[in-house]
């Protein structure tokens, strides 16, 4: 098939540099979109039939958002992102050929002002510290030990392996698992939510 549609290519293929550089899209994503992850997860858990699909739906929103942002960075991220989320849900519902479902998602989320003043930096840091502590507590003991040795004590992976008496490959697995869980706790959960 002839690939003559930039739009389709952008959709399905890798992030291609178009009008906005990949670095700018990345910076925008980390600054504006990633902080919305907890809201997005909550949105999909509330409004989609299967809570376990939330992670996949959020990922799909990210892909749509970043691909659109390559053309032009949206001025306000929140309404932009939640419109994508809502349309995604509508699509999903439509595919199910369901009788009229009255509403798709809570519209309030769309209208929450995005430019409200953020919390004080110190509060953020304290909050993050607390969350990190909680997150670390949730890790399996060996996994936690690896993360602490690597990140807190600054040992190299080889040193961690030597200290713990395990292979470097195993250290890598511990760290990767730890990072996976920590990412979820940082971005995917609202403050005060338990990290199960």
């Amino acid at each position, binding site marked *: 098939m002839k690939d003559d549609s930039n739009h389709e290519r952008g*959709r*399905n*293929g*890798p*992030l291609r540099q178009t009008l906005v550089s*990949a670095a700018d899209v*990345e910076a925008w*994503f*980390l600054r504006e979109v*990633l902080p919305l992850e907890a809201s997005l997860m909550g949105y999909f858990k*509330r*409004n989609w*039939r299967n809570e376990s699909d939330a*992670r*996949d739906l*959020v*990922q*799909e929103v*990210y*892909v749509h958002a*970043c*691909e659109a942002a390559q053309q032009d960075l949206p001025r306000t991220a929140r309404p932009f992102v939640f419109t994508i989320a809502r349309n995604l849900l509508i699509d999903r*519902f439509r595919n*199910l*050929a*369901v*009788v*009229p*479902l*009255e*509403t*798709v998602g809570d519209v309030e989320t769309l209208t929450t002002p995005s430019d409200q003043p953020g919390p004080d930096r110190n509060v953020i*840091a304290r909050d*993050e*510290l*607390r969350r*990190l*502590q*909680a997150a670390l507590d949730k890790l399996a003991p060996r996994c936690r030990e690896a*993360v*602490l040795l690597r*990140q*807190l004590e600054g040992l*190299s*992976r*080889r040193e961690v392996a030597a200290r713990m008496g395990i292979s470097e490959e195993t250290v*890598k*697995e511990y*760290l*990767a*698992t730890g*990072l*996976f869980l*920590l*990412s979820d706790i*940082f*971005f995917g959960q609202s403050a*005060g*939510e*338990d990290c199960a």
Partner: protein
Amino acid sequence: MSRQVLKAESAAEIQMNASRRVIERRDAENWTDEDQEKLDAWLNESSAHAIAYWRANHAWGRTYRIAALKRPAAENPLPKREDRRSAAAFKIALAVCAFAVAGWTASMLFAGPKFTNYTTPVGGHRVLVLSNGSKIELNTDSVLRLSDGAAVLDRGEAYFEIKHDPAHPFVVSAGGRKIVDIGTKFLVRNGADHLEVALFEGRVLLGAPDGSTTAPSKLTAGDVAIATANSTSIVKLSLRALTNEVSWRQGVLIFHRTSLADAAAEFNRYNSRKLIVADADAARLKIDGKFRTNDVASFTEVAEDVLRLRIERQGNQTVMSR
């Protein structure tokens, strides 16, 4: 490289993979061109890969920064997770009205007027128009006794549109309470363990339990009072939510983030074929939707298609389970 590939690979798998690659990249003691090529190839496979990598990389940097901040002193224990539902429930204003009228309850006691009985069967709906133009709509499975200027809702639910007469306020008795209209449209639902009064227009006074000396509560438009034997709580609802409360007047049920258990219970009020939600997980599913009160079939079909529930007919019951 297409959506199909993305579908096959779950977001969790991609994120785990991205985490592993971030660790590799960050920890590499000698990162070769070949390593970089392999990483680039993976990142270029799909936007989802690149985004998951950004995300994990950002998180790893953050743990490092925070770890650097961390002092050895033990952190405060985490605050207990807030139960949002109860938080919302506690927002309820216990609005006790200012004009406590001594003997008010007593003055409202009716001694022996003649009552006429009106009933509706399960699924029934009946509109009564009074001689003064006031209107009363009875919902499913309800029993109302009516006399001049007073009504007793013995069971079920009724919507009142009362033409106000200051000299003779209309009084509704239900669930051991009295509701006195001050020119208004309101809904009264006499439930098994509580009484619900919702105000659409005007004002009413909701009396304390009969025999109690507590002052009546004054309700204004948008208030929904939930009264039990010894407590009254009042919440303010939006017009839309309030309208949903009386959607039965149009013969429909409107669900908005309603649990499957509550939705089934609503249907059961209107239908003799009862819905049973057999497991707790299914009961907690939240749904939105609009259905005819008597159209259980559509509801179960949707539940089967959308919620992927098993629907079984057993005698006069329909059992829904995962």
